[in-house]
């Protein structure tokens, strides 16, 4: 996985709370193979009207072309465990979501796809959403090592689980780490078969 260091791009202000993963990618698009790219379906029904025509929205604003940062309100990515929500963000070009809180499964899915869930205070989220730099589509800077998001004169610190931070900075892959643990897994299984004989499957 590609390591995450810093970003310097315009940001998309999405002044909404509880942006659930059903909104991030509506279920009807999830039958498609990932290879086709999920970017066009990101927040599809927010960006398009019932007839498929464009709605005025910050994602398709030409001032923000190439934006890799999205700023939102609390509980971003709540709901369904669908990793397709992260695929849609990633394929659209988003590498960092800044919000006061995240759905747990979403945040975990994000890290596994190299997308940084950066947790800021509610006050800083509001300040970023209201910032002139963000409104005008000027570049904001995300620095993972320093754990800051900067927009104009505003520098907002963000929180990230230290394990996830290391993983993102290094682009580490879980499966490789686990394969190295095979002896511990075998040891656990031998011991566990005695401790919990009822846990095995019959039939």
């Amino acid at each position, binding site marked *: 996985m590609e390591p995450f260091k810093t970003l310097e791009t315009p940001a998309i202000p999405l002044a909404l709370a509880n942006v659930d993963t059903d909104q991030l990618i509506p279920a009807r698009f999830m039958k498609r193979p990932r290879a086709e790219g999920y970017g066009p379906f990101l927040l599809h029904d927010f960006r398009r009207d019932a007839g498929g025509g464009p709605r005025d929205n910050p994602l398709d604003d030409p001032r923000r072309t190439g934006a890799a940062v999205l700023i939102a309100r609390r509980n971003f990515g709540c709901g369904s465990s669908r990793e397709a929500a992260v695929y849609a963000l990633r394929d659209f070009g988003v590498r960092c979501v800044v919000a006061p809180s995240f759905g747990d499964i979403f945040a975990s899915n994000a890290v596994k796809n190299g997308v940084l869930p950066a947790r800021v205070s509610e006050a800083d989220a509001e300040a970023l959403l209201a910032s002139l730099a963000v409104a005008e589509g000027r570049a904001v800077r995300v620095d993972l090592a320093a754990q800051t998001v900067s927009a104009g004169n505003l520098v907002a610190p963000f929180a990230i689980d230290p394990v996830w931070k290391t993983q993102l900075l290094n682009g580490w892959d879980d*499966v490789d780490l686990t394969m190295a643990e095979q002896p511990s897994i075998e040891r656990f*299984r031998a011991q566990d078969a005695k401790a919990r004989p009822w846990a095995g499957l019959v039939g």
Partner: protein
Amino acid sequence: MGRTIIDKLWDAHVVTTRADGTSLIWIDRHLLHEGSFHAFDQVSRRAARVAHPELTFGVADHYVPTRGRSEGIANPEIARMVRQLEDNTKRAGIRLIGLDDPRQGIVHVVAPEQGLTLPGLTIVCGDSHTSTHGAFGAFAFGIGASEVAHVLMTQTLWQKRPKRLRITVEGALGPGISAKDLALTVIARIGADGAQGHAIEYAGSAVRAMSMEGRMTLCNLSIEAGGRLGLIAPDDATFAWLRGRPFAPKGGAFESAVEAWRALRSDDDAEFDREIGFEARDVAPTVTWGVSPEHAAPIDAATPDPAEIADESRAQAVRDALSYMGLEPGTPLNAIRVDRVFIGSCTNGRIEDLRAAAAVLVGRKAVVPGLVSPGSLAVKRQAEEEGLGRIFREAGLEWADSGCSMCVAMNGDAVPPGERCASTTNRNFKGRQGPGSRTHLMSPAMAAAAAVTGRLTDARELLAGRA
């Protein structure tokens, strides 16, 4: 110092812990549905093998038709989703409860019915409502596709020990008040992100008094409060429910398992990171009015007025929700008219749910169209034996086959744009039941009452003199 049930389950599954505190945990059961194709693709890309097909089960539920099943699936894209699951499980030697299997149903209804769900197990599935299995004292949680791939390849997952939250509910729920009303009350109080980062233990006399079906509804909705998982310590009700299930231990092995399972409870001196208490008598019939499960209120309340909310971002969220739902501030909830009802889902598609809905509907006619999709074909057969299927049909509702159906609208069962649905499901998100759909979440009895009156209704009014 004592340990909570959450700690006991966690400790029993830790393979190894890294210096950074992340643990590799062993997964006892892995459940798959049609959405698993992304994970199988990842396994193929690595040219890896499924490590433990014998601990993995597939169930077709998200895309399966609930009507006209004998004619096959007309939509080729949907048919491909069901076939992909068959192909992927077959290739890996994974047992599948597929479309044509008499055990078919929603994975979170089927796994307990089959005894795949047991106390003390870690259970994962690429579905956030996996928390349902916690009703049996299992450590069960939803995961994303990359984690599904990781479990397929290794039967383990890297996880952080969750924080522990105990929600204690004392007293007795009033007549006509169900686990759904309690869960919505909890979510409305603590918020849709109130339990983020936490595993929840539900405790107290009201929880102990619940049937297994009620406990599954309560644990199912843990994710809607943001919880990583929700669970209830197993007791005699749990053991009685599981005895004799096809994949549960048999005879003496079951009895010795019960002895071990009795230890799966929080010690008296165990400490939780957070504790929240509720009084069961305060729980009213509850419905949602907005676009998040936290937008829930008692049926005798009214929609909120954003002008009375001081915090601007919260006021804006309420304005946005009311606008999407087509509702004015201050509208009495029991004046809201509905266009249709849906009874089913992993939240409320079990036999007890169907009985509660039928108790309202018997001898009455629905004034709006409605679909009833049992949680499994086993539930459907039992409901028909009890005469419930006939009650739904005579009320004018459609009595269908089992699947996720109109809860997630993946199989073509959808609420048309702009229509308002009284629904026993778990999410009132924008567009969840189909583009432009408007969802009001409630219990099965409340959905049945809405079918009869055509508006959100306190089911107790229709149950008076009946129970």
